[in-house]
C-alpha cells in the first residue's frame, strides 16, 4: 500500500520536480493519450447509437457524472500529497441524508445549505485530525469513516425516502444551463471549480508544496512546508466539497435516502488515477483529471446506449483503473524482461564456459 521508496536522493528529486519542462513531459504524453482515448470513445458512441451526439444524451451524460467529477478535485490534491480519502462518497451520502433530515424538520433551504457545508468541515477535520495529530494511515482512517459516515446517514434517515423538495431547487436535475442545452449545472460547477483547483495546484506556492509533500514528506518538512497543517486543510477541503456534491446530488434526484452515492468512492479514485495522478503521490495534473472525467463518463454512456447491463459497468470502471496503473509500469516491465534475459544469457554462457573448461 505504501510505496517502497528506497533511500531517495532527496535533493535531486526535489530539484527535478521544480525543474518544470523535463518533469512535465511524461504527463503531457499521458494527457495526449487521454485526448486520443476521448476521441476514440466519441467515435465508439457515434457507432453504437445515433442517440449519442444529441443534446439530450449529452445532458444525461453530464448529469450522471457531475457530482463524482466534483469530488475528484479535492481527491486529486489529497492523492498528490501522498494520502487518500475513501470517505468521499459516504460524506456525500451523509450530506444528502442531513439535507433530507433537516428538510423534514421544517428547516428552510437557505439555512440547510450552510449547515450541511459546516458538517463537511467537521467530517473533513475529523479525518484530517486523525491523520495528522494521531499519525494514523489515511487509508485505514478513511475506510473507518467511510463506514462511520454512512452509518450516521443510515441512523438519520432509517428506511425513509424524502423527496418533497421545492422545484425551484430540484430543477437543476431537469433543466440545463440556460443557453447551453447540453450542460448541467453540476458540470458547470465542476468546470468552474476545476479552473480554480487547476490554478491553485499549478500556479501557486500552495500547489507546489503539495507536490513536494507527495514526493518526499521529510524533505518538504525540512524545506519549511507545514506538512500537517496543509494535510488537515486538504481533508477539510475534501469534506466541504463532497458535502456540496451531496447537496447537488440530493436536489438533482430530488431524493434523500440512506444509500445515496453508495460506492462512488471507487469511481472517484478510478478517475483520478486514470487522469495520470500517481497513487504514490507527487505526480499529476488537474487537466489530466478533467480529461479522465470525460473519458470515464463517455465510455459509460456509450456502453449504456449499447444496452450493456448497467450494473455490470463495474467491469469497465475496474478495467479502466487497472489499465491506468499498469500502463505507466510497461516501461519497467520491458526493462525487467531485458534484465532477466541478459542474466539468463550470461548464466548460459558461463555454464557453457564451465563445461568447456
Amino acid at each position, binding site marked *: 500500500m505504501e510505496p517502497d521508496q528506497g533511500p531517495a536522493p532527496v535533493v535531486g528529486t526535489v530539484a527535478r520536480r521544480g525543474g518544470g519542462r523535463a518533469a512535465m513531459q511524461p504527463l503531457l504524453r499521458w494527457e495526449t493519450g487521454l485526448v486520443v482515448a476521448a476521441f476514440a470513445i466519441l467515435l465508439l458512441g457515434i457507432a453504437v447509437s445515433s442517440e449519442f451526439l444529441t443534446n439530450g444524451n449529452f445532458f444525461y451524460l453530464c448529469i450522471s457524472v457531475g457530482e463524482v467529477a466534483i469530488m475528484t478535485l479535492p481527491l486529486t490534491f489529497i492523492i498528490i500529497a501522498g494520502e487518500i480519502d475513501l470517505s468521499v462518497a459516504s460524506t456525500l451520502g451523509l450530506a444528502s441524508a442531513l439535507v433530507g433530515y433537516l428538510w423534514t424538520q421544517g428547516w428552510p433551504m437557505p439555512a440547510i445549505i450552510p449547515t450541511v457545508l459546516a458538517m463537511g468541515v467537521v467530517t473533513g477535520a475529523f479525518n484530517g485530525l486523525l491523520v495528522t495529530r494521531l499519525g494514523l494511515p489515511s487509508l485505514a482512517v478513511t475506510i473507518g469513516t467511510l463506514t*462511520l459516515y454512512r452509518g450516521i446517514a443510515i441512523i438519520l434517515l*432509517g428506511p425513509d425516502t424524502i423527496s418533497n423538495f421545492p422545484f425551484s431547487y430540484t430543477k437543476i436535475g431537469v433543466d440545463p444551463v440556460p443557453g447551453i442545452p447540453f450542460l448541467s449545472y453540476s458540470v458547470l460547477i465542476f468546470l468552474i471549480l476545476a479552473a480554480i483547483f487547476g490554478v491553485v495546484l499549478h500556479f501557486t506556492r500552495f500547489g507546489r508544496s503539495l507536490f513536494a509533500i507527495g514526493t518526499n514528506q521529510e524533505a518538504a518538512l525540512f524545506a519549511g512546508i507545514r506538512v500537517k497543517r496543509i494535510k488537515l486543510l486538504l481533508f477539510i477541503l475534501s469534506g466541504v466539497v463532497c458535502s456540496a456534491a451531496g447537496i447537488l446530488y440530493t436536489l438533482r434526484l430530488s431524493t434523500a435516502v440512506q444509500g445515496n452515492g453508495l460506492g462512488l468512492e471507487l469511481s472517484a479514485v478510478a478517475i483520478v488515477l486514470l487522469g495520470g495522478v500517481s497513487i504514490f503521490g507527487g505526480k499529476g495534473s488537474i487537466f489530466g483529471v478533467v480529461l479522465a472525467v470525460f473519458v470515464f463518463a463517455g465510455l459509460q454512456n456509450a456502453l449504456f446506449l449499447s444496452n450493456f447491463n448497467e450494473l455490470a459497468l463495474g467491469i469497465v470502471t475496474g478495467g479502466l483503473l*487497472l489499465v491506468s496503473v499498469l500502463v505507466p509500469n510497461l516501461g519497467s516491465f520491458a526493462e525487467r524482461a531485458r534484465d532477466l534475459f541478459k542474466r539468463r544469457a550470461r548464466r548460459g554462457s558461463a555454464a557453457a564456459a564451465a563445461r568447456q573448461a
Partner: protein
Amino acid sequence: MTAVPGTAPVTSNAARLVDVVFRIREFGIIAVLGLLVLVTALIQTRFLSMSELQFVLVDTTIFALLAVGETMVVLTRNVDLSVGSVLGLSAFLSADMFGKHPGTSIVTVFAIGIGIGVACGVANGLLTTIGRVPSLVVTLATLYIIRGIDVLLVGGGQVVASSLPNSFLNIPQATTFGIPDLAIVIAVGVALVAYYLRSYRSGRELYAIGSNPEAARLAGIPIGRRVFMTFVVSGAVAGLAGVLWAAQYGTIDSTAGTGYELQVIAAVVVGGVAIFGGSGTVIGAALGALLLNTINSALYVLGISNYWDQAIAGFLLITAIALDRLITVQLTAALRRRSRLGA
C-alpha cells in the same frame, strides 16, 4: 554484548513487555466480548438461547474465515478488498451447479467454489507482484470487475433454497454437543494457521515482509512469492466462505457479500492486526470477527434498530486503530527507556 552483566535480563524484560502487550490485545477483546454477552443476557435472557448462539456462531465462522485470509494479506503490508465480490461469485456459481446439473456431489461444489476463489486470488497476486501495482488499487479494481462478472452471470435471477439439496443446506445446521460442527472445524483451522504463522519459517517471513519490506528483501526473503501466496490463500478462503454462505442462507442473488470487504477489514483491525502489516495474529482477527458479529446480534436482541450497526462498526474500527497507535507509541517509549537504563 551478552557478556555484559545486566544486559540479558533487560532484553528479556523488554521481550516480556512486548509479549504482554500483544497478549493483552486478545484478552482485551475477550473481556469486551464477555462483558457484552453478560450485559445483553442480563437485559434479555433470550440472548443466551441455544438457537441464538448457534446462529451467531455459524455466521461468525464465515466472517472469521474471511478475516483469517485477510490477516495473512494484511500482515505483508497489502490489502485484499475483493473478498466480498469473490464470496458473491463463488456463492452463486457453486450453488447454481445444483440447479444446472442435478446430482452434483457436495465435494465437487466445494471444489468449484474454492477453485473460483483461487483463480481470483491468482489474478490479484499476479497483478500485485508482477504488475507492481499497489494491492489497494488492484483489489479495488477486481472488487468491481468480479462483481460485474457476477452481475452479468446472474442477470436478474437468483438461486433459491428449494433448488439446493437438503444435505447441502444442513451443513451449517449440524451440531455436536450443541456447538455447530462448522464452528469446530473452523476453530481448528484457525488454530492451525496461527501455529503456522507463529512457528514456521515461511509464516514468520510474512511478518518480516510487513515490518520492513526492504530489510526483508535484503535478508533474501522471496517477497513476491510470499505475497502471491497470501493472495491465493485469501482468494481460496473467500471462495470457501462463498459456498458456506450459500448453504447458510439458501437464497443467492448478485448482491451476496456486497460491502463485506470493509467489515472483514474492520474485524481484522479490531482484532489487533496492524493495517500496515508486520504485527497481529489470526486468532485476534477471528476474535475481532466474533466481537463484531456478537455486537450486531446483541443490538438485534436488545431491540436496538440495526440501523446502528454500520455506525458502530465504523466507530469501533477508528477506535481500534487509534488505540493501537497510542499503545505502540507508549510501547516504543517504554522499550527505549529500558534499553537506555540497560546501557
